[in-house]
């Protein structure tokens, strides 16, 4: 008797759909009942208005209405943002479980104690198996240290998943308290994709009211930028610029970018790829397995005879559908993918084991060996299995088999989002959410080489601010990627991975002092070559620039928009219309469809 499979089975065979008719009938009925309540008030109003002192009554009524709406508004927005339970079993990547949240600018809210029936966001993980762990971690997270001059302490990457749960912001830090800022890069796309999806079907107000937020760094990094590419045999190149901050006239915006080498696929030794595909019952939805099949056709197009392809599927059981096919056998591979059907439970751990075993069978020494896991995240397993999976992923990456995660239909946060991110983080790969054909095309075709090939792993950035020219600084985004300054040179501490041709952008809001002339900061980047365990160091210094590229302005427009979307307490004069204006000016002529799409989103938000 397997109760764990009950939900899947019901969803696939017994559930009834919410028809449009039912939905409309309900909304109509609700609006009608709402009007009834209003009507009673209105009737009294009407009687008043009909009386002779109409002007005076109208004035009184108007001011009453204004006061009432101000009060309601304050009451509603005055509530602390809902907090959530997490499966924070996804503890430190290096196994470090010290996860004190040092209170990076939490919006005036303190986490609940164990005894509260906690405020949770609509989409929190309520998987029974993870419940105990979330309570334990809530206790850990109740320890908060002061904001002021807080040393950048490690927040466990993966605990706050894009768009859900506790919204935290990096605060301004004074250089006299701590002039060094360290963080790991992030090339995941999930937060922006989910925001884009949500905003298409709800207003910004609804988005905010449901406790959602967008990860600014993931939004900025979603777009392609033309940064100077690395030369010679260096895998990365760093550039910096400093310009005006459009939402804070007292501040400057520091722009730090990393560009990864663009590999020439023709010159590579070929890849050994295992597609590990979730074919459990929950994958039957249109935006999951069917979308996956269409999207994978893109990926297959990019393979050649040098590549070796295998397909492993998992549902209630594990199946090796194809083993060791040549990348050039496109129809054989496509037929195998198109023949997949979704049904059954989700033996995620077994699937992963089998995929690694098949990858080992076809291991290319000195080549690129990678598992592409495609799932909606519904693992149906408890936290100890997640820990096992994580340890397995870590062990395997050390032996040269990496893991990238492709999320399909991860609309519902309960489907295990942060677990997916953790697997990718530990597997030296990115976590990409594919919600439509266009996104599938982008990830698996245009950017396939970034998905397949890592050019630099464990990339960490450390910025040292000049105490005599900078008074304080604030890192925009990367809240769940912060590292302690010691972690920077500790090669055992994991960082994000940069794929071929990928770029990473980080923005700091800086308050300068003493005229702010001269060097403002130094940037150090540590990274490892994909086949090495020893990190390399790269240094660069930054001062105010005369020439700011359109990339700088576009990125700052994205940042400005995110400040408004997140209703950040640091938003200053940020406005969506200004962001729209700048994004148009520096994005509308670009051939980049993603930028145009973003501009359209802003347009819709301000209309």
């Amino acid at each position, binding site marked *: 008797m397997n109760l764990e499979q009950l939900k899947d089975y019901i969803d696939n065979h017994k559930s009834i759909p919410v028809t449009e008719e039912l939905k409309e009938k309900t909304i109509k009925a609700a609006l009608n009942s709402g009007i009834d309540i209003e009507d009673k008030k209105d009737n009294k109003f009407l009687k008043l208005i009909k009386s002779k002192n109409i002007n005076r009554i109208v004035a009184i009524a108007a001011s009453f209405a204004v006061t009432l709406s101000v009060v309601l508004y304050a009451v509603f927005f005055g509530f602390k943002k809902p907090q959530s339970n997490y499966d924070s079993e996804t503890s430190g990547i290096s196994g470090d479980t010290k996860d004190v949240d040092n209170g990076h600018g939490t919006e005036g809210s303190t986490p609940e104690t164990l005894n509260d029936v906690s405020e949770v966001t609509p989409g929190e993980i309520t998987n029974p198996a993870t419940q105990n762990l979330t309570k334990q971690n809530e206790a850990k997270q109740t320890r908060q240290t002061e904001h002021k001059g807080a040393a950048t302490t490690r927040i466990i990457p993966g605990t706050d998943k894009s768009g859900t749960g506790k919204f935290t912001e990096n605060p301004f830090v004074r250089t006299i308290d701590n002039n060094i800022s360290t963080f790991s890069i992030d090339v995941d796309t999930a937060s922006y994709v989910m925001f884009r999806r949500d905003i298409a079907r709800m207003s910004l107000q609804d988005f905010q009211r*449901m406790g959602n937020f967008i990860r600014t760094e993931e939004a900025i990094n979603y777009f392609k930028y033309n940064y100077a590419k690395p030369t010679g045999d260096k895998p990365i190149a760093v550039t910096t610029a400093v310009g005006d901050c459009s939402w804070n006239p007292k501040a400057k915006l520091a722009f730090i970018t990393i560009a990864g080498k663009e590999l020439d696929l023709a010159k590579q030794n070929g890849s050994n790829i295992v597609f590990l595909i979730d074919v459990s019952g929950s994958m039957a939805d249109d935006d999951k397995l069917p979308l996956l099949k269409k999207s994978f056709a893109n990926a297959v197009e990019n393979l050649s005879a040098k590549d070796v392809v295998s397909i492993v599927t998992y549902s209630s059981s594990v199946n090796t559908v194809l083993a060791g096919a040549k990348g050039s056998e496109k129809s054989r591979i496509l037929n195998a993918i198109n023949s997949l059907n979704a049904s059954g439970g989700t033996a995620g751990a077994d699937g992963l084991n089998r995929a690694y075993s098949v990858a080992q069978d076809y291991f290319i020494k000195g080549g690129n060996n990678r598992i592409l896991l495609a799932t909606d995240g519904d693992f149906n397993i408890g936290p100890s299995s997640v820990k096992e999976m994580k340890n397995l992923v870590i062990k395997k990456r050390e032996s040269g088999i990496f893991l990238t995660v492709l999320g399909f239909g991860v609309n519902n946060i309960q489907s295990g989002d942060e677990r997916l991110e953790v697997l990718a983080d530990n597997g030296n790969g990115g976590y990409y959410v594919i919600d439509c054909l266009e996104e599938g095309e982008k990830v698996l075709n245009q950017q396939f080489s970034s998905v397949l090939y890592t050019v630099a792993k464990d990339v960490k950035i450390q910025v040292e601010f000049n105490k005599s020219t900078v008074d304080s600084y604030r890192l925009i985004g990367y809240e769940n990627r912060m590292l302690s300054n010691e972690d920077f040179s500790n090669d055992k501490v994991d960082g994000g991975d940069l794929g071929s041709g990928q770029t990473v952008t980080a923005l700091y809001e800086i308050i300068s002092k003493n005229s702010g002339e001269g060097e403002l900061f130094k940037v150090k980047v540590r990274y490892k070559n994909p086949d090495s365990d020893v990190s390399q160091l790269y240094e660069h210094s930054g001062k105010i620039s005369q020439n700011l590229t359109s990339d700088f302005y576009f990125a700052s427009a994205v940042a400005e928009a995110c400040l408004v979307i997140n209703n950040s307490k640091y938003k200053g004069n940020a406005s969506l219309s200004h962001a729209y204006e700048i994004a148009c000016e520096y994005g509308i002529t670009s051939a980049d469809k993603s930028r145009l799409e973003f501009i359209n989103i802003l347009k819709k938000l301000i209309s």
Partner: protein
Amino acid sequence: MSDGNMGSRLSALIDEYGSCVLNTAYLYLNDRQLAEDVFQEVFIKAYLKMNTFEFRSSVKTWLIRITINQCKDVLKSAYKKRVNIGFEDIDCASLCSGSVEETAEENIENEMLYRAVMSLKPQHRELILLRYYNELSLDEIASILNISNGAVRTRLSRVTAELKKICSGQIAENARVNLTRADT
């Protein structure tokens, strides 16, 4: 607040939780029409209370609480009217009957489990639904049913044991009747 704004908020709420509410009611009452009625009631109530929702529990838990209470009301009035809700008729025989053969092999066990769950009394079934269909925590279930966390645990283990008995009874019954599949 304008109607348009409230309307779109309700619409977003339904998009997110509609299926969960509808199917929780459907599994509770085993009647599509009644489930749709409950669905409407739940969201109308939610609409009226949207502005005063204090986020002390999750939106999902709140909606499910309303759903369960609404279902219980339906049962009470149905009982009073002596209306037959239907599920009480399910007995062991029908659990093993006919259409199980038509079910795909890997689904036979799931189908049997499903029928076993549907044969439980509502007060027992709701525990299974809340725990395994809605995937709520023990605390959340406790707050919905107004009992202690410990009581939830106890009742849940009793119901699970009951289910096990029913299922092994089904297996025995199947073996005895020697059901075979039409095309293997």
